[in-house]
């Protein structure tokens, strides 16, 4: 078939002798099997961290924000740092599933499901911080544009903080719907394989009765394409609006027009790093090396390298513009970042975000799994420090030198951050045991184009017609006859 043609120079995206049935079996295996000891150990640690963090959230809310290390000068610190960090991580999922879909990048299919799951879970963590920081989270509904019970006051649509409420809730809900729609055929596959009645029941509910008629697939493809088209500007808008939280204020170091593209690049950078961290572990644990190949890792490393370079250019531009503007406050803010009391944070950021991704120019390094894993952790540390540098070093030198101060986190600050990491991993580990973590229906559509077995058949001049048959399922056919 001509429609399955792909240039022989392209490396296979599914390696080995996989048939359609193999894909079903492989993707269903982690769900149908039992959790091993390591899973329980990691899950217990994550759960303990989560519960400890939840306890600290309750302590914060019942006692007050005073339990954090904030002071009169530094009124925003770890909370907003963590918020922006998690939101940034949450950008890779939609980037992979939407932008790469529009660019027809087939390699996204091995990783998009988990990247989207990661997006949803990390946006949930991000959403926690503004809610806790309200101090009285039960009044959170005041952010919704409803008539106020205490007079005809409304929310302020001129405020970037309110734009954020809309941007993040739209992003979270649209990502969730995009993810779930893609999951329906895969849940249906698990449902139709399930032997135990309880499993069958659960997966029939989750699959919304997906049937797979020709018309359903036609709509499915169109919906995916339109959602990708909508999600692409959406994902760019979310971090743009997050950057407005800073850029529309008049704090030196925040009041810059470069913030939106700079934040978006940084978000993609950290998001890909987190996808890398998770998938390098997952491909090993779930035996998905044939679906998430070294080529996938290499391509993600290239994205990390490019976005890391964009971030590097943004850092340099900031410095240049601060000098070029001739504004002393602006110049001092940047000089103070690099040489002041928080210089350690600045240079950690510079090393992790600008220097380390440049190592990916070496093919040997970007195809090394251990090295990629290491760099992905380094990048996420760097990106956390970037937000810390932007937020705390800009605030801690107030206009009045008498207000100058330092910020040091209390155990509550640290615990809540650790708690969100725990919560994130609790969700991700549960997901890895119960959800089809690779978009199997999508992988099946590219199997004949990019599967190793089929590429070899085609290259040797054989026809692919009729090669979808699998011995195991064909035996069942004969028995049924």
């Amino acid at each position: 078939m001509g429609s399955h043609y792909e240039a022989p120079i392209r490396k296979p995206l599914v390696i080995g002798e996989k048939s359609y049935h193999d894909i079903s079996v492989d993707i269903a295996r982690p769900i149908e099997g039992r959790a091993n000891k390591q899973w329980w150990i990691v899950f217990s640690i994550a759960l303990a961290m989560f519960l400890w963090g939840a306890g600290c959230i309750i302590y914060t809310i019942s006692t007050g924000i005073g339990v954090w290390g904030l002071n009169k000068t530094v009124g925003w610190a770890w909370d907003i740092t963590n918020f922006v960090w998690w939101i940034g991580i949450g950008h890779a999922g939609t980037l992979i599933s939407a932008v790469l879909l529009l660019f027809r990048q087939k390699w996204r299919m091995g990783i998009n499901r988990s990247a989207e799951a990661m997006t949803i879970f990390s946006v949930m963590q991000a959403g926690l911080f503004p809610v806790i920081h309200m101090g009285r989270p039960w009044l959170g509904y005041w952010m919704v544009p409803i008539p106020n019970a205490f007079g005809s006051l409304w929310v302020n649509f001129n405020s970037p903080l309110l734009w954020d409420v809309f941007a993040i809730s739209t992003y979270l809900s649209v990502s969730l719907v995009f993810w779930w729609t893609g999951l329906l055929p895969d849940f249906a596959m698990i449902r139709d394989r399930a032997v135990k009645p309880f499993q069958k029941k659960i997966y029939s509910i989750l699959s919304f009765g997906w049937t797979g008629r020709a018309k359903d697939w036609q709509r499915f493809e169109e919906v995916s394409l339109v959602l990708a088209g909508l999600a692409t500007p959406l994902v760019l808008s979310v971090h743009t609006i997050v950057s407005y939280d800073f850029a529309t204020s008049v704090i030196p170091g925040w009041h810059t027009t470069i913030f939106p593209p700079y934040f978006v690049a940084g978000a993609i950078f950290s998001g890909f790093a987190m996808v890398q961290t998770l998938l390098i572990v997952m491909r090993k644990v779930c035996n998905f090396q044939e679906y998430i190949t070294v080529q996938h890792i290499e391509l993600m490393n290239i994205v990390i390298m490019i976005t890391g370079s964009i971030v590097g250019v943004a850092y340099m531009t900031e410095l240049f513009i601060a000098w070029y503007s001739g504004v002393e406050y602006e110049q001092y803010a940047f000089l103070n970042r690099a040489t002041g009391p928080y210089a350690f944070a600045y240079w950690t950021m510079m090393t992790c975000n600008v220097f380390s991704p440049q190592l990916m120019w070496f093919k040997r390094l970007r195809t090394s799994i251990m090295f990629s894993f290491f760099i992905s952790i380094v990048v996420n540390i760097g990106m956390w420090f970037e937000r810390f540098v932007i937020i705390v070093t800009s605030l801690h030198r107030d206009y009045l030198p008498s207000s100058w101060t330092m910020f040091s986190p209390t155990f509550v600050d640290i615990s809540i951050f650790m708690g969100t990491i725990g919560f994130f991993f609790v969700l991700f580990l549960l997901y890895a045991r119960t959800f089809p973590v690779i978009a199997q229906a999508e992988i099946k559509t590219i199997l004949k184009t990019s599967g190793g077995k089929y590429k070899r058949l085609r290259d040797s001049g054989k026809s692919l017609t009729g090669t979808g048959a699998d011995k195991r399922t064909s035996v069942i056919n004969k028995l049924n006859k």
Partner: protein
Amino acid sequence: MKPAKIVRAFYNDDDVLLSAVKTIKENKYHIEEVYTPFHVHGLEKVLGLEPTRIAIASFIYGCIGFAVSILMMNYIMIADWPQDIGGKPSFSYIENMPSFVPIMFELTVFFAAHLMVITFYLRSKMWPFKTAENPDPRTTDDHFLIEISVSEVTGKLKKILKDSGAVEINIIDSKEH
């Protein structure tokens, strides 16, 4: 006359399925439905399915969202409670529009995405607790199923199906269906 029988032909390859659909159509049999485990490119073309209009629906939903956002912010910020913040009075929507653009965009996307997905779910009859209607569990794994309705099953049809590469043929009364 109402067709009395439904013939279900199973295939285990997407290329074979495509050519089988062509053959069956050439022989003037009515294909009721095709169930596939994944999207087979070109299937809707050989089946002669109309293009879906769901993208147009999404565009309309987006326009509604855009209008809702303008009406909402105009009422809240301009009509109901105008304020003069820092010498920048909010007495005209168009003059204050730059700060409303983000939410105009977000609500457009919100409406277009969610209403389109809801439309898709309802048109394809999908919601929680809906029972799946695929006649065989193998159609979500690696089998492709063509459903043909006929008044009576002839040897000719069986031969066509067999020659087109069907690996299994089941015949049921349409009453059972």
